[in-house]
């Protein structure tokens, strides 16, 4: 399937996609890199000057940075743990025969299709609001003091909201993986005298590893960039209690108009993401065959 002719054609066909993505990567990124070495504030146009590593120094030594870094890690890891563990359990449950499988599947997957701004606002107002939210109503019904989720435990609340959005994704993928498990393999293991627990540990779990890898990879990509949920619920607060790196850079550059500082933050975010990416690509490279 390869003549010189078709190879040339292939190169031609692939180049628009490659060139566009390359430009999309390289042009804005090099601009960010350039800005990150400038003193550049949108409120003071024409005052740009070279400042060397100052922006990086200020960004990295700002206590908000270490808070944001911790929050980012907590957010990603927290959501991953909840969704993977919950997803495996839920997938195992839904893989059993029961009545109404189709409808249950549809209900479980639904939160994934809800746009982030909607789910954040619904949870914030209808459920977590300390006066009119459902949790407050329930607490009062039980004679308890309503809990103000978003100001008392802002990060945990956001983790809960984001986990609610991503649990369906993990469940669906793990369920699909479970259903693709070779029945004959299971039966062979049963003939070989493996108990139900043995079969789970030695056949089901290894089979799911690949699917879990994929879930972790894809969710991490999206979770590092969580933004809308924070913007509409807490605005990163109180203080920096629920600020992640993405939100911090946004705040720095578009709320404080500090292009230089924001750019330095952007570069730091890129570097951090790349560290994670290298990790993940190794994992996925082994598990995915292109």
């Amino acid at each position: 399937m390869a003549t010189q002719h078709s190879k040339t054609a292939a190169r031609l066909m692939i180049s628009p996609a490659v060139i566009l993505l390359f430009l999309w990567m390289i042009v804005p990124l090099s601009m960010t890199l350039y800005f990150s070495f400038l003193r550049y504030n949108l409120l003071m146009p024409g005052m740009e000057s070279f400042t060397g590593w100052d922006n990086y120094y200020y960004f990295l030594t700002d206590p908000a940075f270490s808070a944001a870094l911790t929050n980012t890690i907590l957010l990603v890891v927290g959501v991953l743990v909840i969704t993977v563990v919950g997803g495996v359990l839920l997938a195992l449950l839904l893989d059993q025969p029961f009545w109404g499988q189709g409808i249950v599947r549809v209900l479980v997957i639904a939160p994934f299709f809800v746009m982030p701004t909607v789910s954040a606002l619904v949870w914030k107002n209808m459920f977590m609001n300390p006066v009119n939210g459902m949790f407050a109503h329930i607490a009062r019904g039980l004679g308890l003091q309503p809990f103000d989720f978003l100001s008392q435990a802002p990060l945990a609340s956001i983790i809960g909201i984001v986990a609610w959005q991503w649990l369906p994704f993990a469940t669906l993928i793990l369920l699909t993986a479970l259903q693709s498990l070779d029945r004959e393999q299971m039966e062979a293991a049963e003939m070989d005298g493996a108990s139900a627990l043995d079969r789970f540990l030695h056949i089901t779990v290894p089979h799911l590893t690949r699917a879990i890898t994929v879930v972790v990879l894809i969710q991490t990509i999206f979770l590092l960039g969580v933004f809308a949920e924070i913007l509409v619920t807490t605005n990163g607060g109180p203080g920096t209690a629920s600020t992640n790196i993405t939100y911090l850079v946004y705040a720095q550059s578009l709320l404080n108009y500090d292009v230089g500082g924001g750019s330095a933050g952007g570069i730091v975010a890129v570097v951090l993401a790349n560290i994670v990416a290298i990790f993940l690509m190794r994992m996925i490279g082994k598990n995915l065959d292109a």
Partner: protein
Amino acid sequence: MSRRTSASRTLIVTLAAWTIAFLIFFPILWTVLMSFKSEGDAIKAPFAMLFSDWTLQSYADVQERSNYARHFMNSVVISLGSTLVALVIAIPAAWAMAFVPGRRTKDVLMWMLSTKMMPAVGVLIPLYLIFRDTGLLDTRIGLVIVLTLINLPIVVWMLYTYFKEIPGEILEAARMDGATLGSEILYILTPMAVPGIASTLLLNVILAWNEAFWTLQLTTSRAAPLTQFIASYSSPEGLFYAKLSAASTMAIAPILILGWFSQKQLVRGLTFGAVK
């Protein structure tokens, strides 16, 4: 092949599955219910709310207050537009990678995937400035460009996995039959890959519809899609639960329906073909 499972076991599983499914779905259900209530009833305790009168008033209010139709159209144009443009760029690329694989094909695919890992904030400022200076800020075309580039890697990957399943011999047959490259892709590959292309389209419309970083950063009013429209409810103005619910229901209903249709293909698309 199927085993006999005891009815009582099935009953327990059924109860457990339905309970969990109900709890997961509950916030959506509650939002939809609340959207048919008056503002006064919406903030009542759950039972009182449930048994109060039903009304369509909130939907009317939302339309009046924020021109839902315009935001809806923006969402449609932006998500569909960016997906179609991405398809046009991605189909030839996926053809090349699936049918004329070279030594570097896998690397190119991995590289494309890695562009998805670049955090959006890393390029926020330059893009914002470029858009400001070129007049693309708050325009549909600007968002179409950005979302096309964001989803392009996923579109290429998905199409690639679907194309891989089409036997190369069929395309060779077309070549022997005198088809040019153009007719090969147009008359043979594309019709054969219709199911794959359709699910790629569907998934990307969903992703673009729900995209909530660039749509929030790069629009304010004219081109604002539904994500921005909903975000405008984040600062409460008096009694607004019912209106928020109505707006939310309208924003998620179309995509929820599309999503339910596409859930089978979804897994494959979202996992780049790694899980089928």
